[in-house]
């Protein structure tokens, strides 16, 4: 069953056509990487999946609900679809543990002891068991991003969206974050959609690679096939630019 399905989706910012006729199906449990030059619409596309951006035409079915329909309750979708941002967006006024426990407490009404147990386990999983009482501003970028991932996982989502999760990090921090993401991808139930410039991660972890340019999907292929033998000239050119430097 498809977890996320775009059918002829259109998106405009004023006159600017941000997404053109997007058709894309992501099955439950799949890991899909979205690549393309900046301004190609990758971030816009991923942000439509949890309703941070609206869509203007077509259908966008996420977890059996249509986001193109204005009556759809976004919070029901967001309960099941987590997001990790480029700039982390941790709650600056809360400790690491409070960051992780807040949404489960308010949205899922998870009881305190269970909430804390799950939060601690997630912190250990991302290698930050000793940081529970720190505030975000006391953490490095890589640590913040791992907390952000733990915060999303605490909701026990069916799908996770990653919007350039390593782009704001120092090079030596990137590996830790990617390792956590690889770990999550191993979980066969978790659907992952990842916008990234980390081609190594895409090659190694992705089931499929989607290549976008100018708001259109130009290529949608299994990862190995895309990297060994891209069909679109624009994709070939992009790959040669990002891989040979």
């Amino acid at each position, binding site marked *: 069953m498809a977890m996320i399905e775009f059918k002829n989706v259109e998106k405009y910012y004023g006159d600017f056509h941000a997404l053109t006729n997007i058709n894309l199906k992501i099955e439950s449990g799949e890991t899909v990487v979205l690549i393309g030059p900046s301004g190609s619409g990758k971030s816009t596309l991923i942000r439509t999946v949890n309703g941070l951006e609206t869509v203007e035409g077509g259908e966008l079915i996420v977890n059996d609900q249509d986001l193109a329909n204005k009556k759809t309750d976004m919070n029901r979708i*967001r309960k099941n679809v987590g997001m990790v*941002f480029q700039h982390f967006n941790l*709650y600056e*006024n809360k400790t690491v543990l409070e960051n992780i426990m*807040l949404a489960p407490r*308010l*949205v899922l009404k998870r009881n305190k002891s269970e909430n804390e147990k799950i939060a601690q386990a997630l912190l250990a999983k991302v290698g930050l068991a000793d940081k529970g009482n720190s*505030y975000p501003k006391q953490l490095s970028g890589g640590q913040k991003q791992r907390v952000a991932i733990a915060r999303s996982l605490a*909701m026990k989502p069916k799908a996770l969206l990653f919007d350039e999760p390593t782009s704001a990090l120092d090079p030596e921090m990137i590996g830790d974050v990617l390792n956590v993401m690889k770990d999550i991808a191993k979980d066969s139930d978790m659907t992952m959609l990842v916008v990234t410039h980390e081609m190594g991660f895409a090659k190694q972890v992705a089931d499929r690679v989607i290549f976008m340019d100018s708001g259109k999907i130009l290529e949608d292929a299994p990862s190995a096939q895309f990297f060994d033998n891209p069909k679109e000239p624009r994709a070939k050119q992009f790959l040669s630019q990002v891989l040979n430097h």
Partner: protein
Amino acid sequence: MKNFVDAYSWINITYLFKGLLITLEVSIISLLLSFIIGSFLGVIRYSRIKWVSGTVGFIIDIIRNLPLLLIIFFTYFALPKLQIHLSIMQAAISALTVFESAMIAEIVRSGINSVPIGQTEGARANGLTSIQTMWHIILPQAYKKMIPPLVSQFISLIKDTSLATIIVLPDLMYHAQIIYGQNNNYIIPMFLAISIMYFVVNYALSLIARWLDRRLV
């Protein structure tokens, strides 16, 4: 010198302190009310709710651009014509609350605006409703940034209560007037005494604010 000694007789000083108590009472009640109402209006104005936010914004702009004295006159002299009778104290508190709520609403709105949009996106993507996001994430961060402008506004409020002397609110300023009204030689000693009292109260307020600023995360 003799004027000062006589002016600061026990009876005069206790009378001034009684006035100070009224000033504080009116200030604190208006401050609490306008903080609550102003926060509420600021959030509504920020939220861009169709019609409501615009209307609230329009009313806030009108009030902010009126002299406080006019609002005091309105609550004391005009409301009785509309069959609403308030005591002097109630009239002063109502006028100050209306005026200060409008000022605080603007401080709250700009405080909310200064919290990065990523905080809202993070919370909404995490599944929080817009009200939960506002209450748990945005307002706590906004209030921290708002401490300096809020405190200056509160200091203005305490000073502005003296305007209600005009409707015979028996506050610190009014009690000083009564004393030097009886003996002209007491004018300078009285001005000095109430200056010190206003200063001590307001300076204490800024010290509390500085302490709060350090303490909050």
